[in-house]
């Protein structure tokens, strides 16, 4: 029941918000609803029990409305509900046209995202997966920046093309299930698909997730979309939507086509590591701060994909830890980007500089976030990335070497960007800017606190995902015994 509540609170808030006209009221209600949802999620986390909710709605064509969770889903739900209050808060005291519609769409996105992470049925998963895209499309189209008409359409079509392939795979799996066909994940994971089929089926299923993450070479929608998106839109995209791809792969691909995973393992890792280096180098060459952060996000996500496919326990734990850590860090980073633009009116690095002189507190907080992003020890980023690189090392030292470049190159471009924004001579045009205010502290301090606390005390997250990560590990272990058949 509590699952249904967590799913429905944002949905009903979304409808309820449309009644109001006053932007401040709308934001307050949205914030209250997200905080309530966060509290409910935390009770779920601390109760330590599993809860399921299933109604067999209309069980034709394999559909059933069943919600549930395991450690991985709970982690994702926690991340979603943890970030949304900050995403809402980021909009306070800003000029937003038609605020009630904007926040209704944001809440609808939240509901759909939670649905994705809770669904225990593949069709339900698919419906929520697509549903999360629709409000986001409108958030980007109506509140986006320059060039949004074409960029949003590209983003939408690109991700949808992947999803439709997923739909094909889903129906293919559905008709393979024995007896009275079903699309429950549990039924899918019991399928014994022949190795030859798994090899092509892997890509049919994986491309949707690869696009969402995005993994090299399916990333081309991402930089322009991030750059154009409004602050809140990009926070949802980078903070949570990217994790949808990772979650989908863990849920959909590993249990269903394990032989396919093992067969393509090295291909995917190499592609991801190319993505790491590629994105880092491009990030270094960017002159736009938002674009730079967009590419940095891609570099980190690419490392996560590589870690996902090395299939060992360290890497998997590191990956799941990094899901939280990256989500929190990237949201904080994009908030900083927004602050910079709001204060100076530009995001072009050559035009920026010397902000520290007028906004010292902002400089300190940005430094903390940047350090978290480049995975300095004692920040959450370090724990995740260290484990992932340790996992990569078990596969091959070369993989670890290439993966380790995220940290090094990350430090290069992030610190370089920090230098060009905060340090140096003050641009005379910025003589009148002020330091950050109360709202900014409210957004940034908790996020930074999470980054630091998890950096020192990461155990709670590991406890949360321990069982699921272990079972996934066993699954692939037993599959690898079958692998010689495929070759």
């Amino acid at each position, binding site marked *: 029941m509590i699952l249904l509540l967590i799913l429905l609170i944002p949905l009903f808030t979304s409808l309820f918000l449309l009644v109001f006209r006053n932007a401040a009221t709308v934001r307050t209600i949205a914030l209250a609803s997200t905080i309530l949802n966060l509290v409910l999620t935390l009770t779920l986390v601390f109760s330590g029990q599993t809860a399921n909710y299933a109604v067999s709605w209309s069980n034709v064509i394999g559909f059933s409305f069943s919600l549930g969770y395991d450690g991985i889903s709970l982690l994702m739900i926690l991340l979603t509900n943890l970030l949304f209050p900050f995403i809402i808060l980021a909009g306070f005291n800003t000029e937003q046209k038609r605020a009630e519609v904007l926040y209704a769409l944001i809440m609808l996105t939240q509901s759909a995202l939670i649905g994705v992470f809770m669904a225990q049925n593949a069709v339900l998963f698919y419906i929520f997966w697509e549903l999360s895209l*629709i409000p986001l499309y409108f958030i980007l189209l109506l509140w986006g920046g320059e060039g949004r008409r074409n960029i949003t359409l590209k983003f939408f079509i690109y991700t949808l093309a992947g999803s*439709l392939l997923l739909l*094909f795979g889903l*129906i293919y799996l*559905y008709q393979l299930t024995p007896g009275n066909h079903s699309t429950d994940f549990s039924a899918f994971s019991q399928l014994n698909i022949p190795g030859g089929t798994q090899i092509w089926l892997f890509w049919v299923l994986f491309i949707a997730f690869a696009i969402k993450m995005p993994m090299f070479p399916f990333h081309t929608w991402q930089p322009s979309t991030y750059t154009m998106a409004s602050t809140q839109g990009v926070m949802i995209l980078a903070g949570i939507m990217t994790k949808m791809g990772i979650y989908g792969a863990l849920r959909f691909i590993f249990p269903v086509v394990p032989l396919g995973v093992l067969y393509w393992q090295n291909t995917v890792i190499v592609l991801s590591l190319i993505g790491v280096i590629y994105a880092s180098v491009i990030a270094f060459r960017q002159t736009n701060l938002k674009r730079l952060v967009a590419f940095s996000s891609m570099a980190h996500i690419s490392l996560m994909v590589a870690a996902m496919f090395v299939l060992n326990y360290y890497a998997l734990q590191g990956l799941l830890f990094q899901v939280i850590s990256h989500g929190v860090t990237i949201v904080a980073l994009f908030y900083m980007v927004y602050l910079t633009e709001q204060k100076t009116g530009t995001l072009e690095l050559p035009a920026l500089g010397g902000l520290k002189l007028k906004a010292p507190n902002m400089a300190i907080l940005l430094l903390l976030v940047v350090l978290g992003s480049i995975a300095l020890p004692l920040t959450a980023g370090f724990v995740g990335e260290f484990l992932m690189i340790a996992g990569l090392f078990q596969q091959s030292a070369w993989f670890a070497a290439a993966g380790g470049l995220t940290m090094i190159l990350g430090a290069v471009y992030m610190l370089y960007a920090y230098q060009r924004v905060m340090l140096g001579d003050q641009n005379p045009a910025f003589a009148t800017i002020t330091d950050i205010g109360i709202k900014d502290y409210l957004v940034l301090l908790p996020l930074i606190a999470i980054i630091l606390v998890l950096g020192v005390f990461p155990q709670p997250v590991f406890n949360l995902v321990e069982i699921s990560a272990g079972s996934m590990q066993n699954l692939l272990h037993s599959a690898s015994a079958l692998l010689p058949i495929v070759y």
Partner: protein
Amino acid sequence: MSALILSTVLGIILLYLGLTKQKGILAPVAIAGLLGTLYLTVSEWGLGAAYFHDMIVFDNFSIAFNATMIIITILIFLFGIDYYKMMELHVAEQYALMIFALVGAFLMTSFSNLIMLFLGIEILSIPLYVLAGGKKASYRSNEASFKYFMLGSFATTIFLFGIALVYGASATFYLPEIKAYIAQFNGNLPPMLLVGLLFIVIGVAFKVAVAPFHFWSPDVYEGSPTLITAFMATVVKTAGFAAFYRLLTIGLVPMPVPLEKALWVMTGLSLLIGNLAALRQLNFKRLFAYSSIAHSGFIMLAMLSQNQNTAGVLLYYTFVYSLATIPMFIIFILVKRESNGQESLTAFRGLYKERPWIAVSAAVLLMSLAGIPPMAGFMAKYQVFVLSISKGFLFISLFAILMAVVGVYYYFFVVREIFTEGEHPKPIIVTSLNAALIIVCALAVIGLGIAGWNIPI
């Protein structure tokens, strides 16, 4: 049967009511009459009544399709109340002709004899030729009418020729007997019979605008009065596909291999031509014409993947398609009126700013047509793919899915225009009846997508 008689009488009554010069009473009478017809139709559910030496059989299949076509026609008439206010002349004839066309549609869903199919197609088509030319002063409308008439007659001739050839070979018009006759050849059909069957299929394919017999449809859709275009795109298409399905199931299954190949080619071409040509369209009606060809491709895919669910999927698909298409045409009429008759997609600009609820409904309807969950259009496409993938048609299914992506692309051209700022010369006027109907349709599309997907026929 009584439904058939009532609707014919209704058409004649409407013609006479036209003499009273009172436009106001036409729509209520027509709608009341159609509701009566709907009742009579549904009351025959499960009886399987056959008439005229089994030339027409009102089985559950035909009753279900007739009922949806009546509902769609009622919807069109409800929208017509506002539409025909602007029109001075011959309103009664318009209503009457649409009802006569509906009578033809009834025959097309319930035949079991090729002559009845021919009669049904003709009774459906001849009123449409007239209706397409409804705007007498418009050059485009005249062109549409003439083109439709010429090409339609041509298709009819081929169709008749096909019937003659089949009769020449099998000495019967009854489909079950033809089926038995085909079965005795074990797949090696004599050329005369095969050519005859192929010609019959071509005749029906022309009516439903399946590529490569689609060339009439963009021009006719564009030139006809928009309400008639909506009628053609929905009721006529539903009737055509019901007839097509009936022809295949009671006459031609298991299908002769050359015929099946021909049908697969038609499916692939419809998906390809419909979707790719729609990409380049700037005119809304042409866009919908091509997208309707693309939808024909999906329906063909379902039809060729026959199992016991196919009829239900077909019904669901056509109904959901109609339910989304009609309000879109109406919204188009509304924005076109206020942008000086401009028919390009840019006419939709500023709709969201002026009429947010209509704009949101339009977005829902377009998303349903594009097949995005949780709208009904997604469930329709999903079921089609379940049918085709379960039958093992993997490559054509993958191709269809790729084409569905293209479909999303051009439907979102329209969505994008709706949500783009723009100025209309005059404010968009939406009568409260129209607004209510549009919103109800949008809600129905969501509702049908979430629950109630399967009608066992």
